[in-house]
């Protein structure tokens, strides 16, 4: 019981939370980059999972990388971080489900997750990173403030400088 509390306290430590947030944000932005520049290979990769009907494959390939990018930017800048954490956890859960389903059906396909994967086939080891991303997203959704470093620090500095200069004459 106390060990569990200790782990929970450690996960809520602001430094660990910051590291998780920045890592998850960087990973999402990296994952989105090549997909949003050229959605066709990503559409092919989605179709190979044989989960979505064809009518939804292309729109998913177009929209998903941009959602990853926006969520990643929110995590990096500290804007609306719990919402970005929730989106991150949801995306990671979807990826885990798709990967596990493909492996259980014996599909020999690529992951379609990052650029430069080459011809490597999907493997159970591909799940670990998504599980870690899910955990990070859940932690951020539960514990992070809505405005976090660095945006929170910039905002505080701006209001301090406004107070220091005082009210403008005639205002």
């Amino acid at each position, binding site marked *: 019981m106390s060990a569990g509390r200790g782990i929970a306290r450690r996960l809520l430590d602001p430094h660990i939370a910051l590291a998780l947030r920045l890592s998850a944000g960087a990973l999402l932005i990296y994952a989105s980059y090549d997909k949003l520049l050229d959605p066709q290979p990503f559409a092919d990769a989605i179709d190979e999972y044989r989960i979505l009907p064809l009518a939804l494959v292309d729109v998913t390939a177009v929209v998903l990388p941009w959602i990853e990018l*926006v969520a990643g930017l929110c995590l990096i800048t500290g804007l609306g971080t719990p919402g*970005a954490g929730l989106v991150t956890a949801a995306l990671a859960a979807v990826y885990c489900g798709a990967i596990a389903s493909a492996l259980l059906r014996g599909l020999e396909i690529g992951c379609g997750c990052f650029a430069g994967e080459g011809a490597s086939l999907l493997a159970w080891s591909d799940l670990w990173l998504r599980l870690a991303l899910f955990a990070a997203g859940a932690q951020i959704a539960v514990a992070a403030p809505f405005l976090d470093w660095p945006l929170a620090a910039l905002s505080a500095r701006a209001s301090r400088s406004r107070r220091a200069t005082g009210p403008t004459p005639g205002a």
Partner: protein
Amino acid sequence: MRGRLAWTLACAAAILVVGGALGLLANAVSSAGIPLVAKSAPPGRAIELAEARLLFEDGGARFIDARPHGDFLSGHVAGALNVPLAERAGELDRLRRELPRTRPLVVYCEGGECASALELSAWLVGSGWRDVRVLSDGYPVWAAAGFPVARGEEP
């Protein structure tokens, strides 16, 4: 607590809406954009040798040989997949594994009066592949033009 949950859900919804809108907008203006509405080519849309060669060189299309296996072994378009018309139903699982339904396919047979490429292309469209074309001249004209061919099984 309830306020935090509501704000979290609102932020998540905003990220989904903004990301989705940016994705649709970028896809509409980008030269790499893809069609969002399925644009199936009519089954059996005939293409000429020159267009088939362009699709071959581009590397984006996969060639499907609709002839019997023996004909395929004695010569076929390099890299082609053999799907004899009579055995197509048993090949569906393999095709779905190997060919994304978004990928253009070029089906061919012996050309001339041969109908197996037309029938196979209609079956492929019916099975979900959206861009299926038929090389109307068939394999003999492709080979006679000196375009890349192979013999035996494909690796």
